[in-house]
């Protein structure tokens, strides 16, 4: 018989925050994965909401592509507010 598949677990620690990846676990289906996640990853009130997704459905970028993927953003500093020098009186803008 096949083994229980692996699920990735994401927990929102409180309302207003993003779900954050906390780890993985095994379960026979998604419903069980949620319940297991409750017992495994929130024994100390760590969460208000849980997402689970079977690990095989996650597509990840290739670390070998890192340069092509992310380097081009490096020199585009005009996307950051600190790029713009404004007079002190209005600098809180």
């Amino acid at each position: 018989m096949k083994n229980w598949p692996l699920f990735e677990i994401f927990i929102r620690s409180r309302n207003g925050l993003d779900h954050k990846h906390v780890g993985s676990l095994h379960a026979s289906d998604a419903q069980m994965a949620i319940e297991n996640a409750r017992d495994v990853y929130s024994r100390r009130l760590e969460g208000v909401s849980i997402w689970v997704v079977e690990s095989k459905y996650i597509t990840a970028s290739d670390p070998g592509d890192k340069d092509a993927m992310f380097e081009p953003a490096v020199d585009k500093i005009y996307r950051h507010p600190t790029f713009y020098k404004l007079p002190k009186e209005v600098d809180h803008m």
Partner: protein
Amino acid sequence: MKDQEQLLKEFQEKIDREEKIEPKDWMPEEYRKTLIRQISQHAHSEVVGMLPEGNWITRAPNLRRKAILLAKIQDEAGHGLYLYSAAETLGIDRDTLIDELLSGKAKYSSIFNYPALTWADMGAIGWLVDGAAIVNQVALCRTSYGPYARAMVRICKEESFHQRQGYEILLALCRGNAAQKKMAQDSLNRWWWPSLMMFGPSDKNSAHTAHSMNWKIKRFTNDELRQKFVDMTVPQANVLGIKIPDDKLQWNEQRGHYDFGEINWEEFNHVVKGNGPCNRQRLDDRRKAHEEGQWVRDAAMAYAEKRSNKIA
């Protein structure tokens, strides 16, 4: 296409810059193997480590202690699980790891091959065994492999209560009557040396230390960590008023550390080889749980497949 040598050089530079290695990054095969061995050994230790303490759940002396002990052992199951998950990011699945444990191929910490004979042992295990584990684990929070480091951070956060509850058990005993105090001393006598052995062979005899240090899988040597543990623990024993069973133990002003006696390495080697008092019992228990759980795991999988076929 980069050649092997170039990749290896970049890998080492990354580690030297204290950058974490993540699952899909290139890594030398030896790094992967070392990690799988170390993480799975660590995971197995958590899971086998549930047994000596689990042995006392039904006999805990009061309800508060029973609840604490249960919560503590449950954490260990959780920690085993975090670690298996970390190992799985290296491309090996949990079932393979468990098979390696049950066949005797993979190791776990030998400390759990010693029996938990009295209630005081719940104290000694928390104080000494978890104490030694924490020394190890705090160091591992900065290990170079990302998923392992993250699991360790989580584990350390949760484990801080384990050592305290153990010490509290012994504190109650040492403040109790003669029988309780005797129980505490006896458990320290039995658990002290095995706890020191938890840090592994001495640096001069350790097969894996050099490589692991270079790759920052390990951040301190076995002997450094062992010394740290001794220095930390001696004053705690004094507060309890029980005596560490080592005549050579004394403060060395010059070194700024405690000197301590030689570990019985012959015993260590025998227990590692499988001749400890409980090696067979522990593995039998794990094997039984795994085999008797097979039909349960199969049933859940069969049900999930039926249901997804129905939806599809």
